[in-house]
C-alpha cells in the first residue's frame, strides 16, 4: 500500500520498520476472515486490515493516539491469526507492537484503566506479588456481587472469576537439574512468571521429562519474566528491562557450560523470546539477543527433535488439542504437539475453528472480558462437539481460560511426562 511518511519521520527506526510492513500489505482483505474480533463484531475497524489502516493513519499523522483508534487497537488479541493467513507476509506483530507502544506514549487513558494496567504490570510478572494477589482475590470472591457495574466492575469480576479457588504449593525450580544416566546435552528452561504460581506442575513435568531423556536443565535464578505481558501492553521500558535480564542470564550460561537450546513451555513467552533479536535490533545486546532467539524453542519442538517415546501403555483417552495462538500463529508450530500426543498413545481430536483464539491472549481476558468471554464460549462449544476426555494445550493462559467448564485442562508436556513414567496429572480424575 501507499504510505506518506516524511523523510524526517523515516529517520525513526520504528517508523522505518512499520513503513516497510505497511508497504507489504496489499489490502487484499484475506486476513479479515480469520480474525476473531472481525468474526464476532463484523466491522472492518475490528479486522486486521482495518487496524493496519488505523495505525498507518495514526503513525503518519504523528499526532497523539485518539480514543477511537485506541478502542480498536485494544480490542486486538495479538493472536496473530492474521499473520498465518496473510499471503503477502505482512508482519502484523511488529506493527501492532509499535502501535501499542505509540498509544502508551501518546495517549492518556482514564484513571481506572491506568490503575488496572499499572497493577497488572506490577503483579503479573512477579511470582511473589502474583501469589499475594491471587490469595487476596480468593478471599474477595464471596463479595463478587457487591462490585459496581460498568467497565470497571466487569473487569474486576473477570479477574476474580479467573483466580483459581485453590493455589498449588510453591515450588522452586531454580538451579541445575542433572540428567539421569548418560548426559546428552544441556538446556535452559524459562521458568516463567504467572505459570510458576498457577501451575508449577508444568515446569516439574518438563524437568522430569528432559532429565530422563538425558539433558541437564538449568534455570538461572536471575532469569525471570520474558517481558511479553508488558510488551503487549505497549510498556516498552519494563519489557526491555525484563528481556535484558534474561539475555544476560542465558548469555552467561552459554558462555559457561554452554546451551543446546533455550526451552519455553509457555508459548506466549516463546513468541516473545523468539522475537528478542528484533526487539534489540538497535541495542548493544543485539548479537546476544539474536543468538538467544535462534536457540529458543518450544518444548514440543525440542522433544520432536530429540525423539520422544512413551513407556506406559496408552491411557485410552481422547485429547482435544487446543492450538494456542502464540504457538500456531506466533511460532508456526502446528504439527509437533499433536504428533507427540499421538505417539504417547492418546487419541487426538482437533476442534473446528482451531485458528480462532480462546480469548485468553495474555492480559486480554482481564482487559476485554466481554469479547474474551464470547470467544471462550465459542471455543468450548467447538471443543465439546469432539467429545474429548480432556483438553491439552501448550500455554498456561489458554489452560486457565478454558478451565472450569467440566473438562480437565492439562499442559501437553504433563501428558507426555506421564506416559513416559511421570506421575498422573493431578487435574485428571482417577
Amino acid at each position, binding site marked *: *500500500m*501507499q*504510505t*506518506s511518511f516524511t523523510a524526517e519521520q523515516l529517520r525513526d527506526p520504528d517508523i522505518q520498520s512499520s513503513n516497510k510492513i505497511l*508497504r*507489504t*500489505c*496489499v*489490502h*487484499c*482483505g*484475506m*486476513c*479479515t*476472515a*480469520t480474525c476473531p474480533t*472481525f*468474526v464476532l*463484531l*463484523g*466491522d*472492518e*475497524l475490528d479486522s486486521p*486490515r*482495518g487496524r493496519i*489502516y*488505523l495505525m498507518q*493513519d495514526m503513525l503518519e499523522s504523528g499526532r497523539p493516539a*485518539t480514543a*477511537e*483508534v485506541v478502542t*480498536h487497537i485494544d480490542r486486538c488479541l495479538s493472536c496473530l491469526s492474521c499473520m498465518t*493467513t*496473510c*499471503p*503477502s*507476509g*505482512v508482519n502484523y506483530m511488529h506493527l501492532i507492537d509499535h502501535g501499542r507502544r505509540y498509544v502508551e506514549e501518546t495517549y492518556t487513558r482514564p484513571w481506572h484503566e491506568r490503575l488496572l494496567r499499572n497493577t497488572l504490570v506490577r503483579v503479573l510478572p512477579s511470582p511473589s506479588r502474583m501469589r499475594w494477589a491471587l490469595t487476596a482475590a480468593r478471599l474477595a470472591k464471596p463479595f463478587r456481587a457487591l462490585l459496581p457495574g460498568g467497565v470497571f466492575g466487569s473487569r474486576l469480576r473477570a479477574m476474580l472469576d479467573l483466580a483459581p479457588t485453590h493455589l498449588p504449593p510453591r515450588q522452586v525450580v531454580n538451579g541445575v537439574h542433572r540428567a539421569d544416566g548418560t548426559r546428552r546435552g544441556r538446556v535452559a528452561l524459562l521458568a516463567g512468571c504467572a505459570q510458576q504460581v498457577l501451575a508449577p506442575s508444568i515446569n516439574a513435568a518438563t524437568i522430569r521429562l528432559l532429565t530422563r531423556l538425558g539433558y541437564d536443565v538449568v534455570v538461572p535464578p536471575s532469569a525471570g519474566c520474558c517481558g511479553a505481558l508488558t510488551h503487549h501492553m505497549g510498556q516498552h521500558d519494563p519489557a526491555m528491562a525484563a528481556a535484558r535480564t534474561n539475555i544476560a542470564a542465558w548469555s552467561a550460561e552459554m558462555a559457561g557450560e554452554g546451551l543446546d537450546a533455550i526451552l519455553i513451555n509457555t508459548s506466549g513467552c516463546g513468541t516473545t523470546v523468539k522475537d528478542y533479536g528484533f526487539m534489540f535490533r538497535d541495542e548493544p545486546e543485539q548479537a546476544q539477543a539474536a543468538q538467544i532467539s535462534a536457540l529458543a524453542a518450544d518444548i514440543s519442538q525440542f522433544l520432536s527433535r530429540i525423539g520422544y517415546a512413551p513407556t506406559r501403555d496408552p491411557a485410552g483417552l481422547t485429547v482435544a488439542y487446543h492450538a494456542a495462538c502464540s504457538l500456531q500463529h506466533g511460532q508456526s508450530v502446528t504439527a509437533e504437539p499433536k504428533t507427540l500426543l499421538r505417539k504417547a498413545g492418546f487419541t487426538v481430536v482437533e476442534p*473446528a475453528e482451531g485458528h480462532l483464539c480462546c480469548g485468553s491472549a495474555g492480559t486480554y481476558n482481564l482487559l476485554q472480558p466481554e469479547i474474551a468471554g464470547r470467544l471462550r464460549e465459542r471455543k468450548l462449544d467447538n471443543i465439546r462437539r469432539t467429545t474429548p476426555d480432556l483438553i491439552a494445550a501448550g500455554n498456561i493462559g489458554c489452560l486457565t481460560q478454558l478451565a472450569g467448564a467440566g473438562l480437565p485442562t492439562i499442559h501437553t508436556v504433563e501428558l507426555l511426562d506421564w506416559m513416559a513414567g511421570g506421575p498422573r496429572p493431578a487435574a485428571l480424575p482417577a
Partner: protein
Amino acid sequence: MLALPEPKADILARRDEIVAGLRAILPASGVITEPLRLKPYETDGLPAYRQIPLAVALPETTEQVAAVLKLCHSIGVRVIPRGAGTSLSGGATPLADAVVLGLMRMNRILEIDYADRCATVQAGVTNIGITQAVAGNGFFYAPDPSSQLACMIGGNVGMNSGGAHCLKYGVTANNLLGLTAVTIEGDILHLGGNHLDAAGYDWLGLITGSEGMLVVVTEVMVRILRGPEGARAMLAAFRSNEIAGQCVDAIIGSGIIPVALEFMDRPAIHACEAFAHAGYPLDAEAMLIIEVEGSVAEQDDLLDRIKRLCEPFEPLSMRVSQSPEESLAIWKGRKGAFGAVGRISPDYMCMDGTIPTSRLPEVLRRIGEMSDQYGLKVANIFHAGDGNLHPLVMFDANDPDSFHRAEAFGADILKLCVEVGGCLTGEHGVGLEKRDLMRFQFSEPELERQRRLKDAFDPAWLLNPAKVFPLQDKPRQAA
C-alpha cells in the same frame, strides 16, 4: 486516474439528519460517522482508489437493510453496498456523499437442506463458510474464487464470481437458486427458489453480476453438491509461457475437462512458493496446475491421458500430488497468489479479462511485449482452462508515474482481450476500474439498453453509481 462524481452539496449539508436517521434504525455500534473511523472504509481490494464516505451503516437483518435504503431513498442519498471489501475492481469504492452499507454482520447460515441439496445463507457469509457448514456431511459449494476465505456470498452474486473449479462446475450464476433482495425504495423481493426454472423473467440472471446497482442482496439460496470421491492435482512445468499456453489449448481441445486448469508464470511461481512451500518448480518459466477428480481409477486414467497430452510440449517436469496435504499446499499457493505477489512488489493491479483459450499463446506473448514497453513487471496467474486471465501489473504506489503507467498497461491488456474476441471481465466485475473501457466492449445502443435497465430499478441512480458505465456519457449518473 478515474474520476468520482462531485458530491452533492445539499446531501452533505443534511449529514446530521441522515446520521440521526441511521441511528434510529441501527444499534450504536452499527453506525460509523467519525472521520477517523470512516477512513478504513475508504477503499476495498483496489486501494489505488479511495474516498471517505459520509457514513457507514452495518445492519444485521433484511428489515434493517430495507429501513436504511428507504431512508436514503427518501433523502436522495447514494448507497454503496459492501461485503468483505475484497473487490479487485473497486466495486465497493465509496463516494463522499454516500452511505456505505456493509453487510458483514449478516453472517448467519439460515437453513441447510441436504435432501434438496440447497443452503440458504445471509449475504455476509463467506464463500468458504458455506462449504465449511456442509463439509461434515460430504457436501460443498462449487464456485471458489481465490479470495473465498474472505469474500462474501452477497458480493459473489454481485460480481458473478468464478474460481479455479468453475471449469467444471460453472460460475455463481450456475449455482444460484434464489435471492432475497431489497430495492432502493426499501421493498423486499424474494426471487427464485429451489427449482431449476422460475416463472416469469429470469430475475436471478438479471441480478447476478449487476454489481450492487439494481438491488441489495441480503439472503442467498445456493445449490450445494456432493463432494467427489477424490481429487488429485498435478504440476506440469514448461520452458516458456507460450509453450504452456499451447499445452492448455491441447488439453482443452482434446475434450478432457479437468476440474481445474491453472496457469502461473515465473514471477508468480516464485512468489507463491515463498508463501505456500508447495514444491513448485522454480526452474520453470511457466507452470500448470491440473486437477482431476473421481474414483482413483478415473483419476489415474485422466492423469495418464493428460500426461500424454503434455509430453509433446517437452515439460521440464510433471509431478502428481501424492497426498491430500500436498494438494492442499498446491492450492494454498494458487489461492494466495494475488497477496503473495505483495512479497515481490509493494503494489499490484490485478487485471481480469477473458479470451478464447486458443488465443492464449498469442495474448501471453503480447502481454510480455507490453511489459517491456511500459517498463513494469507483470506476473501472470489465471484460470487457463476457461480463458480467464489475471495478469498482475506490479508498480509502486509511492511513485505516481509508475501508477499511471500501470493504469495504462492494464487498460491495454483488457483492450487486447476484447480485440482477440474475449471480454473485459472474467469474474471481478467492471466496478470502477473498468468503467471507462466498457465502450470498447459495447456499442452505444447496447450500453443505452443496459442503462435503461438501471433506470427501471433505480431511476435516481442512487445504488452504487459511478461504477460499470463510463461516467462522462451518462448525465443521470453524474448528476
